[in-house]
Structures are given as structure tokens and as C-alpha cells.
């Protein structure tokens, strides 16, 4: 890790933006009656931040149901995201998708996804496009959880990407649980990264609370992909601070001591503890970022609230590129 000041501040800003989006945006969304499908990634900020800091807008990511952090780290506008969560027409998905489907193709963001491991093949497909059309210069990162690690499609994709030498990074965010199911029950190996051996790719395991460890490991995997040397599997061990959704009490399956242990290794706190003693960055600079991010969230909520709802007719928009609306309504006795 020898990062310039600008990059360091950027890493912090991204993590803080993710944290505040979760802490502020999720309750605000709940107050507007839309909390059923929202998953907080608070605690996991270092993973998307460290990975995506190695990417540009031309690169791609596929995300998960717990995907606000991936969106923010890939450059999706938090104001638009907030509007999407509120079901407003100004969201990137025009209010059609919500938290579990946020996509922004202009940022190479191939969507958060409500099907576990559902976006993994999309990232592999983007990597194929990169290989065929862009000489591997664009890299695709497929994010998935420890639960997603047990989906068949992931394994088929790792094999395919390996035999076709595609520029993909498979990034497992291992937060210890799939809903309430602990990894020690559901995973056959103690490390997901061990599975890389079966697909003849490097398997790397890092501390997912340490943004620098994630950044360094991802830099190597991304470079390998860009170089045409094929995929890698990067496992980041992390923790989600809250329940699976807002309806879940995590203390029904994990202990308060465990939570305290991980909160003690908070990625933002670790960042401060690492960087400030080095003298390049002052607490004031980080506090200033905190204030800017808080203001941004204020702005995002106000923007979302002031945004229009989708018009009734928009129900029929974008089901297809080309299809008669009449054929979508016919026989259904729709009001519009």
C-alpha cells in the first residue's frame, strides 16, 4: 500500500458514503413503506470500496441483493439511488427496480440482483464482450456472498471463465451468514477461496474489514484479468452489522460478543487508525468528508422526496424494446 493522498481520501469518502447511505437511506425508505426488499451493507464497506477503486467506468460489476455499496463504489449517484428506493421516476431504474435491482449501465453497473448469484453470469458475459471487443481492457467483477458461493451457477461460471480465460474477478463477500445460516454449517470448505484450485485460478483470502488489504488483492486480480491471464477468486472476510433485512433480529442466531468483536474492527475506524498516524492525512480532513457526506444524504432524501412518481402508463414501458402495449393489457381488464 503506497497510495497518494487523493486516493486515500477517496477511499474514505466512498466508505463513508456507503455507511451513511445505509444508516440514513434505509430508515427513510422504511418510513415511506418500502422496506420489504432492502438489505444493509453497513460493516462491509471496505470490500466494494477496495475492489472498485481499481476499476474505471469502462469496467463492469455484477452485484447482489446487498448491493448499495457496490453501486456507490462504482460511481452510481446516491441521489438517484435514494429516489429509486423511494420508488420515484428519477431513480436510475425509473422506480421499476428498487434496492434489489439498481442498475446504471453508464457506470458499468450491471445491477444489484434479487436472485442469489444471479448477476455472476452477467459479469462473465461482460468479460466475454471485453475479450472479444476490447482486448480484455475492461474487467468484470462478480460480487456474491458466502451463500451465493453455494449456487451451482457460480461454479459453472468459474469453470467457463477459466477455460475461456475471461477477464473476471469473482469476489466473495463472506460475511459469515446467509440469512441466519452460518458459513460453518453451509460451506464444505473453511475458505471459499480454496475452491479456486478446482478451477485452476488463483484463490486469495483477505481481511474484508481492511480496505487496504482488499485494495491490494483486487489490484493484482484486476491486473491479471486485464493482462489476459484470466479469472481470479478473491474472498473478503467481512461482517454485516444489521440483520439480513430490517425485519430480522440477528441475535436470534449470533451473539452480541461476536457483533462487538466485528464492530471493533469497523472499516472506517481501521482506516483512521491506519492512516492518521502516518501523518499525511489529518482527522480534520476526514471530519470534513463526514460533514460533506452527511449533507449529500440530506440532499439525496430531499431530491427523492421532491421527485415525481412514475406515471401509470409507465407500467408498460421497457418490458420489451418493441412490443405493442395493447398486447400487454389485452384480456387483463387493466385500469390503464
Amino acid at each position, binding site marked *: 500500500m503506497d497510495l497518494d493522498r487523493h486516493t486515500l481520501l477517496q477511499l474514505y469518502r466512498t466508505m463513508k458514503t456507503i455507511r451513511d447511505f445505509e444508516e440514513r437511506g434505509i430508515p427513510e425508505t422504511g418510513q415511506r413503506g418500502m422496506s420489504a426488499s432492502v438489505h444493509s451493507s453497513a460493516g462491509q464497506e471496505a470490500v466494494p470500496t477496495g475492489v472498485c477503486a481499481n476499476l474505471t467506468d469502462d469496467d463492469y460489476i455484477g452485484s447482489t441483493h446487498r448491493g448499495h455499496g457496490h453501486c456507490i463504489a462504482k460511481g452510481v449517484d446516491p441521489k438517484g439511488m435514494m429516489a429509486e428506493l423511494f420508488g420515484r421516476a428519477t431513480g436510475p431504474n425509473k422506480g421499476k427496480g*428498487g434496492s434489489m435491482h439498481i442498475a446504471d449501465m453508464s457506470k458499468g453497473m450491471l445491477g444489484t440482483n434479487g436472485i442469489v448469484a444471479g448477476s455472476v453470469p452477467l459479469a462473465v458475459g461482460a468479460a466475454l464482450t471485453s475479450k472479444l471487443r476490447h482486448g480484455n481492457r475492461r474487467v468484470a467483477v462478480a460480487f456474491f456472498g458466502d451463500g451465493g458461493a453455494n*449456487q451451482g451457477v457460480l461454479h459453472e461460471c468459474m469453470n467457463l471463465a477459466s477455460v475461456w480465460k475471461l477477464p473476471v474477478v469473482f469476489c466473495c463477500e463472506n460475511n459469515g451468514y446467509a440469512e441466519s*445460516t452460518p458459513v460453518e454449517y453451509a460451506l464444505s470448505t473453511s475458505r471459499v477461496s480454496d475452491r479456486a484450485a478446482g478451477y485452476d485460478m488463483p484463490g486469495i483470502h483477505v481481511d474484508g474489514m481492511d480496505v487496504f488489504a482488499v485494495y491490494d488483492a483486487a489490484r493484482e486480480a484486476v491486473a491479471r484479468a486485464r493482462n489476459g491471464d484470466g479469472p481470479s477468486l478473491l474472498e473478503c472476510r467481512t461482517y454485516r452489522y444489521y440483520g439480513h433485512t430490517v425485519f430480522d433480529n440477528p441475535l436470534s442466531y449470533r451473539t452480541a460478543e461476536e457483533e462487538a468483536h466485528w464492530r471493533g474492527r469497523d472499516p472506517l475506524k481501521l482506516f483512521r487508525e491506519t492512516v492518521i498516524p502516518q501523518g499525511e492525512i489529518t482527522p480534520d480532513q476526514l471530519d470534513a468528508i463526514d460533514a460533506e457526506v452527511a449533507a449529500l444524504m440530506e440532499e439525496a432524501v430531499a431530491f427523492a422526496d421532491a421527485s415525481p412518481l412514475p406515471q401509470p402508463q409507465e407500467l408498460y414501458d421497457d418490458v420489451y424494446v418493441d412490443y405493442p402495449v395493447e398486447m400487454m393489457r389485452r384480456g387483463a381488464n387493466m*385500469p390503464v
Partner: protein
Amino acid sequence: MTTTTATRELQVREAINEAIRQEMERDETVIIMGEEIAGGAGREHLGIVDAWGGPFRTTVGLIQQFGNQRVLDTPLSEAAFVGTAIGAASTGMRAIAELMFVDFIGVCMDQMLNNAAKMRYMFGGQVKVPFVMLTRIGAGFGSAAQHSESYYSIFSHIPGLKGVVPSDPYTAKGLLISAIRDDDPVVFFEHKGLYTNRGPVPEEPYTYPIGKARTVRQGSDVTLVGLSKMTWIANNAAEELAKDGINAEVVDLLSISPIDYDHVLESVRKTHRVVVVDEDTPVCSMASEICARVAEEGFDYLDAPPSRVTAPHTPVPYSRALENIYLPNETRVINTVKNLFR
């Protein structure tokens, strides 16, 4: 809507739980598996058992009673565990697998389509597949396109599978016990919006026959056919219509395979009109199937075209502003019925 004289009331969620429990007590070959059906799996040593009891608490308490060899939390691998349940069912177990939401069928459909549905036929009748898939349907919760669909029609289309869509606690328990005892694969669709629906349920085990509809409201002017939660929408609409002098009969379809065409036809013979209220999308749906059958076999009874109130041919939108339009409701049913009298 009741068709029982029982006085004890349960919620749908409790009725489902009781059906599974009673069948597991009766028959030690019955097993159940799925994601989070107990929850906190493998943490008995920390005093954690049954952390969730199912995502909607329909399987609560089962692991304490039957242990973790018959109540199996699974890794997040639907193709594996659905297929495993089918394999177990074809070799001596009665296996229940829970698919958390029907939208996830994509990752395990092959097991349903090419194994569960076809094995007996392809193997020349050598095998029985007493397998039940429990799964969830229903929009209206702001859960967007991958957690809200009501894809039961797809299963009705597949020869070899049976399917049921209970609408209240009484039919939920009776149909689930039938499904578990059935020697064919049955898909049992739970509507997310009905779990807290309360009604009378006999305490002892009983079956409600798969393939039998029921009339939940008598009427003379139009037959409303409902499925799952839509039966309640149809019933509410019937109450409103009565105020305008239109007497609607409400038929609760309850099974999507086999379909009780005769019950519907019998009703239409009396009312001369039919409107199917179906939360699934309209093309090649239960609604279109029933309308087609009524047109074919009940043509002479009809005074108006068989009609449907369904979701549109679109995915489920996230924004409430759109989801409210997407969902069939009482107003749409009332307007559609009134049109038949113009």
C-alpha cells in the same frame, strides 16, 4: 368462506405448520428441507435452535420435535436440495422441499420439469414421487420483480405435476395433508398476503381433495372464479356488486392441476357469465385456460364472453405507484362484471 364446522381458529401460517407436524408424526418417512426452515443451523452447542422457524414462520418448532435429520436446513443451493428431495422421494421418503419464493424456480426448474414431472412416465411406471414443493407467491409488498410473481400457471402447464392454491387456513391444512400423502409431486403455493388470515380449522388431521374447487358464495348472475388471495378479492367485489343488484357466485378454484372444470361449468350453467380473477400474468394462464374450457364446454350456457381480471403481461414493478395498478383489485373486478351486463 368456511366449509367446516370446526370452532378453533388458526392463521394460515399455523395451519400449514400443523399439517406438516401432524404428517411428520403420522409417517416417519416424511422429511422437510429448505433454506432457513429452522435457522441458525448447526449452532445447537450455543443454545441456538430454530432461530427463524422459516422465513415466514411456517416451520417453527419442527426441528425441536423431529430433529435435524428430518428437518433439514440447506445450503443456498436450490437445484441441489430440490433435486435431492425428489431423489429421496423416489426411493422411499416422503420429501417436502421449500422454495422460499416461486421467483427462484429458475435455478431449480430442471429438477421439477425433467425429473419430478417425468420420471414415473419415462420409467414406465416403476417409480412414485411423493414430493411436495412448498413455495410462495404474491405481489403487493414493494418487493419488485424477482420476489413478487405468482407463477403457478407455469406448473399447471407441466404434465406430471399437481398444484394447489389454498385461500384460507382450512384449505391450507387440508390441501397440504393431501399433498404430503399424495404419491405424485405436488406444488403447494402459499400467498404472502394470506399468512395472517384467520379461520376455523379442525384439530385432527384431515384431507381436502386435490382437484376439487368449492363455492364460497352462492349467486345467480355471474360466476367469479378466484385463486388463492384473489378469491378474497372476488368475494369483496361480490359484496359490492350485491349492493347494485348483481348476485355473484364465488368459486374458489383451490387446485391448478388437476383443474375442477366441472365445478366451474356447473356454476356457469346457473349464472351464464364467468370472470376469472387471477394474480398471475394473462397469457397462457389459469385464467385463459378456464375461459377457454368454459367457452368449449359451456358455450350454450353463456350470455356474455368469458372474461378475466389478471395482472398485465409485464413483470412486477417496484414503485407502489405502479404495483397498485398492476395488481387485480375489487374495482377492476366490479367494472369487468358490470361490462358483462351492458
